[in-house]
């Protein structure tokens, strides 16, 4: 027959409806779900040859006719009273009365109504004053009678009502009158095999703590409501709620928190009592602890307030003396209390860092800084305690701060606590025979000689030190030079934990990125690269993070053309490094070294050094300008505040004076900004995307530029490649073998032979690249062309020939650029290039 097929075909375009029929008992029977259509009756009932229109509902599954209704112009609406017909557009007129018998209908209405009906339904529920009272009554009856079917039904109804997500309904059902019963209803989830005991949990197990009794009843009621709504959201209906409902529940909680905090903070007697008890000597330790926990909740809930109000609250709390109380809390034996104290401090820092800073610089605030340092060095067992490092960083941050406050904090920190940190490192690193281990830094802080400091604490110390290097370049310089602190930090390279060795390497990298010649020369003078090279050699051929970090360090030295370091490293450690010559970075370090000797040998010292000097002078002016514009605050005020102080202070001023007229010779620094920022990540400044972004053509411009800048580097690549390429061809498994070969050949054939054999292989490799590579084509061609003359003279020989002249001129060069002869490269220049590491040590 045509009709059902037709209806089927059109099913998607037709209204989906539910059909109920009133039975003799006055209940509504569900007839099923189907699609509604209007058609001539004759198409169905062929026998009746009428032209009347009829309304049909066909079951959506089996296409049976669920409903046939003859449409007549007169009585259609009256007739509808007989047959309730819910279509998506039909009007939902009234709620069925709440009785056990109507529960199924209520449920169906709830669950199966469309969006427009849901709004209507919400309205009906809200208009019916008795609805919830009756529903809850029914619930209690069902619970008394243990009518599980009824309880399951009520569960579904309540869940359905919550999912209507109406703020007005929430207001009603989360009020004191209904909320516990509502939660009761939700204990009977038919899909969960066991009845849940949420009410019992809320009544018996959850403890509402009152650090200070809250007398305001509406406030109390809001507090309880907030907890219960949160519990309902996170526990009872966690798997049920949709995003929109969760958002609405969250905003209820948010609004409640704002109200509660706001009412309490404006209650001056409450705040006064709070602080009186916190201060009082007669308050027991236990209740003090609770008071601090309360303060934490109070402060953290204040996030729900408006910004201005929140700030005002925190200022008020500070004026009431909250930081004194935190100082007390941080001295507690109870670790949880200490951590809660730091959490409160972090809340203050997030709000306005200057609040805590202004406290710490005051006389009464000084102990707090000490406690924070101590906390950072304390083992908190399983607990995380990153807060200490975080707070210290914020207090010592010189980028976001200005003025005397900052300088005072920094001053106190360096005076009292830096040594403390270093002592922890020296105490927890194996102190070998070596010359580096030494006298204590002689500073104030006393640290128990515990050799069992947790590695993560050492790692935090190292991180803070890196932070200091970036933020207080001058202060750190003075301290590092005077107290041999770099040696001590480098003790970390002896630790078993590789990430600590890596941390030490990064620390060195941070120092070098300051481009401070005093410090750079300090490295050579004190043979500070020995522990790093040792760590590198110890790590062997493993390609891991340590390997990469040290190669990066060498690469940096080479690219930045730090000649004195380059010379020191190759002169002192080449015997050890030579077995890593297959690595491009190691190889090019040597090449750079040779170039350095070569250029200074080939050209006269004068012509080389003079233009350099001029550049330096030009740079100096600009730098001085920038320096005073940018970073001068710190030093000016620092020296001012210190001048009345002590000898140490004077030394500081002196060294600063030198430093300010003493500038890095890096060519980069001509257009000086904080160039090391680019490499470093310690600060979380938003990514200020560099210029390329602004200019669309930049993309094409910048690339040749980059290439050009890279060309001198690329030149050497085939040479660098040597063993390195050989190794690559051999594949990873063979790396060890290749390296072994290298070492063997080194041992068996002294002198230049290993190098030249490798040259042969490298040339063929380059030849391949040349013929087939596309992108690298040009570079390679260029490179290969350069490769030949180089190959004619063995680099080793080349080196030796130029050696005397080169080393002399190189050192002279260093001297002319360096303005401080005492700390200049003199010593290292005296070391013959082929000297052994031992000699280098003795030489310094």
């Amino acid at each position: 027959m045509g009709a059902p097929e037709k209806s089927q075909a059109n099913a998607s375009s037709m209204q989906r409806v539910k059909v109920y029929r009133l039975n003799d008992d006055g209940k509504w029977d569900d007839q099923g779900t189907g699609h509604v259509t209007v058609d001539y009756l004759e198409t169905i009932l062929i026998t009746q040859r009428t032209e009347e229109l009829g309304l049909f509902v066909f079951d959506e599954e089996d296409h049976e006719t669920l409903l046939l209704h003859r449409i007549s112009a007169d009585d259609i609406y009256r007739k509808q009273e007989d047959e309730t017909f819910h279509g998506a557009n039909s009007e939902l007129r009234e709620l069925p009365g709440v009785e056990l018998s109507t529960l199924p209908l209520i449920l169906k209405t709830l669950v199966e109504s469309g969006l427009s009906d849901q709004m209507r339904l919400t309205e009906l529920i809200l208009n019916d004053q008795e609805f919830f009272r009756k529903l809850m009554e029914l619930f209690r009856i069902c619970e008394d009678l243990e009518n599980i079917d009824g309880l399951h039904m009520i569960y579904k109804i309540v869940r359905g009502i919550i999912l209507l997500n109406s703020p007005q309904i929430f207001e009603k059902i989360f009020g004191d009158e209904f909320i516990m019963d509502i939660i009761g209803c939700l204990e009977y989830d038919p899909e969960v095999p066991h009845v849940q005991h949420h009410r019992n949990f809320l009544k018996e197990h959850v403890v509402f703590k009152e650090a200070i009794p809250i007398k305001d009843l509406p406030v109390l009621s809001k507090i309880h409501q907030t907890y219960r709504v949160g519990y309902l959201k996170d526990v009872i209906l966690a798997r049920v709620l949709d995003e929109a409902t969760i958002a609405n529940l969250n905003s209820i909680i948010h609004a409640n928190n704002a109200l509660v905090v706001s009412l309490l903070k404006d209650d001056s007697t409450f705040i006064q009592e709070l602080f009186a008890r916190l201060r009082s000597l007669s308050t027991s330790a236990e209740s003090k602890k609770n008071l601090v926990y309360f303060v934490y909740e109070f402060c953290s809930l204040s996030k729900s307030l408006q910004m201005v109000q929140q700030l005002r609250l925190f200022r008020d709390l500070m004026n009431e003396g909250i930081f004194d109380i935190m100082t007390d809390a941080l001295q507690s034996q109870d670790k949880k209390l200490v951590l809660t104290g730091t959490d409160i401090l972090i809340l203050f820092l997030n709000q306005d860092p200057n609040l805590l800073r202004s406290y710490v610089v005051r006389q009464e605030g000084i102990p707090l800084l000490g406690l924070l340092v101590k906390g950072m060095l304390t083992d908190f067992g399983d607990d995380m305690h990153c807060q200490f490092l975080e707070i210290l960083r914020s207090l010592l941050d010189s980028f976001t701060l200005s003025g005397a406050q900052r300088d005072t904090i920094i001053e106190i920190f360096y005076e009292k606590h830096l040594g403390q940190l270093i002592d922890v490192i020296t105490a927890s690193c194996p102190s070998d025979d070596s010359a580096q281990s030494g006298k204590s830094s002689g500073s104030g802080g006393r640290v128990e000689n515990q050799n069992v400091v947790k590695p993560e604490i050492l790692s935090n110390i190292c991180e803070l030190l890196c932070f200091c290097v970036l933020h207080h370049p001058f202060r750190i310089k003075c301290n590092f030079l005077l107290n041999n602190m770099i040696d001590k930090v480098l003790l970390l390279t002896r630790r078993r934990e590789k990430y600590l060795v890596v941390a030490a390497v990064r620390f060195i990298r941070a120092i070098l990125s300051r481009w401070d010649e005093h410090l750079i020369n300090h490295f050579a003078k004190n043979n500070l690269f020995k522990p790093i090279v040792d760590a590198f050699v110890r790590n062997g051929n493993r390609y891991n993070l340590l390997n990469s970090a040290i190669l990066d360090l060498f690469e940096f030295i080479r690219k930045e053309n730090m000649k004195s370091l380059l010379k020191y490293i190759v002169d002192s450690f080449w015997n050890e490094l030579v077995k890593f010559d297959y690595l491009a970075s190691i190889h090019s370090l040597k090449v750079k070294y040779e170039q350095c000797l070569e250029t200074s040998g080939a050209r006269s010292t004068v012509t080389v050094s003079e233009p350099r000097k001029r550049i330096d002078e030009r740079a100096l002016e600009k730098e001085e300008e920038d320096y005073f514009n940018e970073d001068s605050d710190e030093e000016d005020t620092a020296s001012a505040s210190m001048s009345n102080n002590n000898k140490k202070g004077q030394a500081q001023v002196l060294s600063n004076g030198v430093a300010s007229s003493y500038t890095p010779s890096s060519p980069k620094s001509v257009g000086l900004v904080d160039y090391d920022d680019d490499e470093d990540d310690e600060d979380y400044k938003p990514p200020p995307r560099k210029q390329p972004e602004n200019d669309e053509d930049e993309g094409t411009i910048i690339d040749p530029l980059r290439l050009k800048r890279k060309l001198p580097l690329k030149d050497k690549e085939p040479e660098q490649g040597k063993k390195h390429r050989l190794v690559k061809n051999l594949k990873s498994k063979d790396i060890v073998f290749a390296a072994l070969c290298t070492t063997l050949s080194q041992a068996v054939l002294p002198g230049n032979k290993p190098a030249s054999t490798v040259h042969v292989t490298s040339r063929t490799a380059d030849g391949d690249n040349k013929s087939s590579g596309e992108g690298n084509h040009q570079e390679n061609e260029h490179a290969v062309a350069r490769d030949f003359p180089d190959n004619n003279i063995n680099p080793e020989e080349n080196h030796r020939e130029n050696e005397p002249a080169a080393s002399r001129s190189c050192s002279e060069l260093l001297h002319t650029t360096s303005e401080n002869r005492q700390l200049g490269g003199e010593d290292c220049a005296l070391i013959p290039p082929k000297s052994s590491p031992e000699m280098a040590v003795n030489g310094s």
Partner: protein
Amino acid sequence: MSDLDRQIEQLKKCEPLKESEVKALCLKAMEILVEESNVQRVDAPVTGECASRAWHYEAICLYVLETSFTQRAQNNMFWSIFIVVEADPICGDIHGQFYDMKELFKVGGDCPKTNYLFLGDFVDRGFYSVETFLLLLALKVRYPDRITLIRGNHESRQITQVYGFYDECLRKYGSVNVWRYCTDIFDYLSLSALIENKIFGVHGGLSPNISTLDQIRIIDRKQEVPHDGAMCDLLWSDPEDIVDGWGLSPRGAGYLFGGSVVTSFNHANNIDYICRAHQLVMEGYKWMFNSQIVTVWSAPNYCYRCGNVAAILELDENLNKQFRVFEAAPQESRGAPAKKPAPDYFL
């Protein structure tokens, strides 16, 4: 059952770990990750040699043959089936879509039995970044050789503060300590992977500063993702049809690179193709530049609204490719498990 195994079970139910457990896990992970190289080498599946894989095939045999284990063991059929199934997946972005990642594991096989390579972007955007990352990290600590995690551009302090992971940690733990530990771990993650010397896996793409894999070696990766330079580019760049050579990226970091760049990189490094993630593709995967580079995307219905399917790329011992496409987890299987309620409250 060890603590770690228990934690993995717990995380598989999408229940986050305690702070103290996260701390211990991160410290262990650090020791493992510090030993990895910037170009982490991954082997193709080794057929039939590994005992711990047996149960994986066992499960598949049951489906295929419906005979008992002992029977098959006796008949030696057990072994014959291995070859068919052995394939290790490479997966793209996950973005905290925990339940969809569980679908991924259903499609690809359970972790210790199948080797996984994840190309980064574990966190942000989805609702379960914490659980997603911790599960992957726990698997890494438990089975270091069976799962490789490399870094995506979202494994960064700056990015996670904007796109959700930071807030999620704060919400779920009440403090940002867990975020701090996790972001510290991000710094240790490797930057790329090389499968059997033939397939280069990286999150974003290539860099004008990198023409050979060896140049990646000298990156000190233990740092926040920088704003430019090689490390940044590897995590941020995108291949682009209309670009010849290098172009500016609309993302504000990394570059766009064209087919010629890929050709010369692949040739110079003797690799077959590059497998990367980083860009949503509606079909789950997409080849470009004459099959020299493929994008794999593993977050179905991205952000719970994009309507895309997801894919993983499975490679067998001969590096034969098979893409397995999957859809988002059905609604029923979602939803956060109940949180443990705080036992007391002041306010």
